[in-house]
């Protein structure tokens, strides 16, 4: 609320300064007298923590940069030197790497809060978009920073991501080579990543200033989503909001400290303690936890969509998943801001939160991992006991005709009275056919949970039957499997469904609850009942 300024300079110097650069007035109007809705809850304290995180990253980052060496042969060792020899280097390094995670934790809560209370809706569209810009820049900054220690994950994450950008049509290849500074991730890449990693936080700081400016123009939203109507609806920022933010921030710092002092590596990947080796791909390449949902969306596309191949589709979906946030103010058609009064939308929102967590989980899993299957893997062994066995070698005229020739051989054997036949191929055209005449046909079925266990069970069964069977014919059947990729597809589908279909439709179709007239006089009991 850019209302009337209530600042009154008290001393001679502040009066003098106020005429020339009213900076104290600005600070006073923004952070002291600034009226805040009186009903803000703890979800509204994360903005303060985000500001703190940015300062912490910049301060620790500048110190790290004094000791860090952006050279492919020295970067890893220089981080080791920071950890071992720089006075309190271990502390600064831990704060910076844990700080990135805490930053994202806070930003995610901050964003979900905005989604729930409809803080993106008019007149706060620009405020919301600036937030999305900050988030995007944070992702870029963290990605660039993660490559600096030049461990295995640093190197391979940089390789995977730059290659993804190369999948974009026309411009992709040039952007990729420009980012890498060559045709692979190498010294030029590290140099420019360091330069950009140093630059972007200051760009973020600039956008944060715009974000706060926009905030102070429109005023804060609040859990009811009802605009401030009179002075009765607000309290001055200082001391009311300040003290609440400080208390919440102290709790946040405790969590921060637990990670810094007791689990500094818990959020990272062990492979990043192995120096980068361009010749050795690690068994799994995974990004940091805060980027896992996007990784899951990327990998959900294991199929081509018409002319768009799966890789490009994944990249486009990944960018679209952030892009959709930018247009959200125009996707949500509801006249009611806060989901507190939108019972139907609230349910879909809760599912949305779970879906984001599921996506994060999927991003860290092997995409082929089976989560559920319709039954066991089974194998049916067939053999003939006590018949007359004969073997015959044959060759097909060419590789293409092999199947045909083999089928012909089998048919002849069967018409000659064979109860069972088996063809074992030795190369492209030559094979041996075993057949058995007479005897008693037998079958045995084995089953197991996994394909490996099945193969073991088959071997066991064969060993047990032993010489009673001259040879076996084995038929295997796989159950239907629900893999991590399938789950990612379902979750990705819901992610986009929520923004592109549910929010536009719900706004038009749902019946919202009763919205209070003012913040100060909520309709009885309503605020206590719903978060």
């Amino acid at each position, binding site marked *: 609320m850019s209302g009337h300024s209530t600042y009154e300079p008290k001393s001679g110097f502040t009066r003098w300064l106020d005429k020339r650069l009213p900076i104290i007035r600005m600070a006073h109007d923004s952070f002291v007298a600034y009226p805040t809705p009186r009903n803000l809850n703890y979800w509204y304290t994360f903005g303060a923590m985000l500001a703190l995180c940015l300062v912490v990253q910049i301060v620790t980052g500048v110190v790290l940069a004094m000791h860090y060496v952006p050279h492919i042969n020295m970067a890893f060792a220089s981080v080791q030197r920071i950890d*071992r020899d720089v006075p309190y280097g271990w502390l600064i390094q831990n704060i910076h790497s844990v700080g990135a995670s805490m930053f994202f934790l806070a930003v995610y809560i901050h964003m979900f809060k905005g989604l729930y209370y409809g803080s993106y809706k008019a007149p706060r569209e620009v405020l919301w978009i600036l937030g999305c810009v900050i988030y995007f820049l944070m992702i870029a900054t963290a990605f660039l920073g993660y490559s600096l220690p030049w461990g295995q994950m640093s190197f391979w994450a940089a390789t995977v991501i730059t290659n993804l950008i190369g999948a974009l049509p026309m411009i992709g290849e040039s952007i990729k080579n420009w980012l890498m500074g060559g045709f692979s991730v190498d010294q030029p890449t590290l140099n420019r990543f360091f330069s950009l990693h140093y630059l972007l936080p200051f760009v973020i700081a600039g956008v944060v200033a715009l974000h706060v400016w926009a905030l102070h123009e429109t005023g804060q939203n609040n859990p009811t989503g009802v605009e401030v109507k009179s002075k009765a609806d607000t309290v001055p920022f200082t001391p009311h909001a300040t003290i609440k933010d400080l208390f919440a921030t*102290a709790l946040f710092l405790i969590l921060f400290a637990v990670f810094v002092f007791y689990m500094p590596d818990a959020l990272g990947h062990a492979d990043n303690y*192995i120096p980068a080796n361009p010749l050795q791909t690690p068994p799994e390449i995974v990004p940091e936890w805060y980027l896992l949902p996007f990784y899951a969306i990327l990998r959900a596309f294991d199929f081509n969509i018409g002319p768009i191949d799966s890789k490009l589709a994944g990249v486009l979906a990944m960018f679209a998943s952030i892009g959709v946030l930018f247009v959200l103010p125009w996707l949500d058609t509801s006249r009611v801001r806060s989901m507190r009064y939108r019972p139907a939308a609230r349910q879909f929102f*809760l599912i949305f939160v779970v879906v984001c967590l599921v996506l994060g989980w999927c991003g860290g899993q092997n995409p082929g991992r089976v989560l559920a299957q319709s039954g066991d893997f089974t194998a049916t062994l067939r053999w003939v006991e006590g018949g007359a066995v004969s073997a015959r070698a044959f060759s097909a005229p060419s590789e293409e005709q092999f199947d045909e020739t083999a089928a012909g051989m089998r048919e002849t054997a069967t018409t000659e009275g064979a109860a069972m036949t088996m063809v074992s191929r030795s190369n492209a055209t030559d094979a041996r056919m075993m057949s058995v005449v007479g005897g008693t046909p037998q079958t045995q079925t084995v089953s197991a949970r996994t394909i490996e266990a099945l193969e073991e069970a088959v071997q066991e069964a064969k060993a047990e039957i032993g010489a009673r069977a001259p040879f076996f014919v084995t038929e295997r059947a796989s159950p239907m499997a629900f893999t991590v990729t399938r789950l990612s597809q379902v979750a990705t589908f819901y992610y986009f469904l929520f923004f592109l279909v549910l929010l536009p439709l719900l706004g038009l179709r749902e019946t919202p609850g009763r919205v209070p007239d003012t913040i100060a006089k909520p309709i009885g009991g309503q605020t206590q009942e719903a978060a």
Partner: protein
Amino acid sequence: MLRALTVAAAVFVAAAGVAFAAGEAEHPHDHPFSFDSPIRGYDMAAVQRGFQVYNQVCSTCHSMAHLSYRHLGEEGGPFAAYMARNHETGEEEMVVGKPAHGGRFVTVTENPYVRAIASAVTISDIDPASGQPMDRPGRVSDHFRSPFPNEIAARAANGGAYPPDLSVITSARHGGADYIYSLLVGYTGEVDGALYGNRYFAGGKIAMPPPLAEGAVAYADGSPTTVEQYAADVTTFLQWAADPHMEARKRMGIIVISFLLVLAGLLYLAYKQVWRGESH
């Protein structure tokens, strides 16, 4: 109904997280190391013995290039020396490890243990007078001597396999110290050409011959000279090497977190005070 769905989804996610598939290798043995606890430090006697094992056994194949000899004698290191007064004789004498009643830290360059360890090593260097390559005894400022001049030489001497640098090995493997300990005691006795069966190594076969044998390293402090003891000691040393400031870190953590708890308590009271009588 939708709420039920959400709950079901959450339960499903939690269950799936628990059912994390195990790989081919066995899950590392959970060894009770002193540093596992959030407050306890290193068993420094074990770190010292572990250094001896590294020095006499592992260092023939593995480098630890991020460590210098001086690290051994810095505060928090296994050979940090202090001058302390002996209560019986009244004499100042040098002890290894911080005495309970305090003492004066002996700078690393004056530390006889570290100097002895460093000077026992031969380092290739350039002769400052002639500019020609020469060998000289190690100094405390030298990095741990690497057994091979480069990776190619290391591979050539190890049948193509590369013995990794051990400076941060406990951080660089899932399972950390438990994994390293398990690996060292996990040999099955099977040999397949130049590969040795090991229950804990991914794939089940490792190119490192069983490095530890009963009695191979003579301990001065009377600790058992078994493979298990060597493995536990060298693992403790490697954990210290990867995380030399752990003790300082945990100590500072207690202070910082206590401070924050008190601060949060005071802020909460202030918050209650400010908001008293305000409806919100």
